[in-house]
């Protein structure tokens, strides 16, 4: 009962419905009781969002009503759509041919050399972007090359399954949760391989194609869960020009590769505000690899590469991981996943090579099969 009265008073105080005398009295109480001050702040925040919500909801309704009204009044016709559609088809046909040629060239390269690996998907963003996942031919080849090794330790990929795509990923929770790109997981099943070459089975928990992020969970008796994750996730924006580094599995063997560069733009391809642009020598296979700042905080996930400019890559901002986890938690309230968020003041002074050796066991090669 007391609680109800208290909240009612706070609400009246915030909406200006207390008399001058009551207000004065309440302010004295607020000043001397931090708990009440805290409640006032929290409720004021809540009312602020509630107000915004109300205004926005009413305005949205108004726009919908207006639009519908004008539409039925015949304000707009759909006719002018026709010529442009024709133009689009023409463009697409032209573009389709180019893509087909490019795809076959890419296939040729992948089969004949093992140095440069390109994966070309016709559904990509035009021919300007190239997703950094590895072409499967090369993974297959790689398996043959390592033939006897793979036979000795039986592969965890089911016998009849075909490897479809691959990339990198990293642990964000000691219980075995791994983040990677959604486009790295083109198949139904997945395995991850650690920096010692050990394969582990993993379940695909969640994939968000819009964010291009996915969550895996290692489900394997051979997995020895670490006590904690050595790096934290940075929520704030990273500054232009800041030094960054990554660790991933871009090559067609199981060796982890270190790459460094700097942040070159706050936004991604064509001004996309959910990602940023980095200057780094990103090879195919770096897709899904973590990106760290100088202090070793996780600031992003490498995702796609602009085809023409060498060394230009894009990374999804790390706060999108936080969004992804929120979405997962919403679907499954029992989910035990916990994130380590940077407080912003735990500036690590560790040397880069120490950081790398500390982080290595948390970064995995990811392969997906059907």
């Amino acid at each position, binding site marked *: 009962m007391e609680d109800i009265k208290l909240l009612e008073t706070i609400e009246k105080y915030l909406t200006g419905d207390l008399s001058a005398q009551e207000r004065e009295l309440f302010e004295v109480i607020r000043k001397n009781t931090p708990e009440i001050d805290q409640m006032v702040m929290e*409720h004021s925040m809540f009312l602020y969002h509630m107000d*915004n919500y109300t205004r926005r909801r009413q305005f949205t309704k108004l726009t919908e009503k207006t639009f519908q009204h004008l539409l039925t009044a015949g304000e707009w016709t759909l006719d002018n*759509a026709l010529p442009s559609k024709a133009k689009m088809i023409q463009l697409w046909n032209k573009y389709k041919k180019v893509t087909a040629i490019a795809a076959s060239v890419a296939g040729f390269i992948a089969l004949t050399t093992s140095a440069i690996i390109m994966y070309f998907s016709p559904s990509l963003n035009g021919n300007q972007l190239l997703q950094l996942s590895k072409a499967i031919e090369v993974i297959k080849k790689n398996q043959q090359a390592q033939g006897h090794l793979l036979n000795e330790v039986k592969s965890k990929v089911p016998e009849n399954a075909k490897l479809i795509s691959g990339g990198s990923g990293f642990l964000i929770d000691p219980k075995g949760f791994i983040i990677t790109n959604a486009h790295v997981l083109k198949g139904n099943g997945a395995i991850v391989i650690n920096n010692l070459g050990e394969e582990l089975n993993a379940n695909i928990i969640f994939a968000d194609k*819009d964010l291009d992020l996915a969550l895996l969970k290692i489900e394997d008796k051979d997995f020895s869960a670490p006590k904690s994750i050595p790096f934290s996730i940075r929520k704030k924006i990273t500054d232009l020009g800041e030094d960054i580094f990554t660790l991933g599995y871009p090559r067609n063997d199981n060796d982890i590769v270190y790459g460094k560069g700097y942040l070159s733009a706050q936004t991604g391809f064509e001004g996309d505000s959910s990602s940023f642009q980095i200057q780094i020598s990103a090879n195919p296979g770096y897709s899904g690899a973590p990106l760290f700042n100088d202090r070793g905080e996780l600031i992003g996930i490498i995702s796609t590469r602009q085809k023409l400019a060498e060394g230009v890559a894009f990374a999804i901002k790390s706060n999108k991981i936080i969004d992804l986890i929120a979405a997962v938690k*919403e679907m499954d309230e029992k989910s035990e996943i916990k994130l380590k968020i940077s407080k912003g003041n735990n500036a690590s002074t560790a040397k880069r090579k120490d950081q790398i050796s500390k982080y290595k066991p948390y970064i995995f090669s990811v392969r997906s099969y059907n």
Partner: protein
Amino acid sequence: MKAELNEQALLKGLANNDSKAVEALYKSHFNMIQHFVLNNNGSFDDARDIFQEAMITLYEKVQSSSFVLTCQIKTYLFSICKHLWLKRLHQMDKYSSPLSIHEESISVEEDIVVFEKKDAAFAIMDRALNSLGEPCKSLLEGYYINKKGMQELAKDFGYTNADNAKNQKYKCLMRLKKLFFTQYNIGD
């Protein structure tokens, strides 16, 4: 000079949820956006959605006391739509050729960031409200959105007196706040 006055009047009307202002903005600018979206791989429905988002961005902007629009409404709406549409094309993996653009546009980066933040808060509140269930949802909507008094709500919901309604409202409010803040604090 007259046109400028007219724009100011429109913005003022928009800030006050004036349906005439909203209608005038739709009438004068939706066609341009429709053209742009249809010419760039989108549908009529896409154009409707994008334009509505741009209208909301402008609406949120005119609410702020420090609001200044440094360009014509037309340019502003177009710039927002262009930005949002490019982003959506990129997400749908549909981006295939340089956009055909004939309109002038300005940088709206900051406004988009503000919009996205507010959009996220809006979505969180919406989900929180919708997962409350009845009678909580309608009770809280009645109080906070439709600004009804406790007496009136007690009558609407069949509570014997306003105190009972208050009790119920308190319980519902606590649940809503919990739902909202758990999500909000993660997503910040």
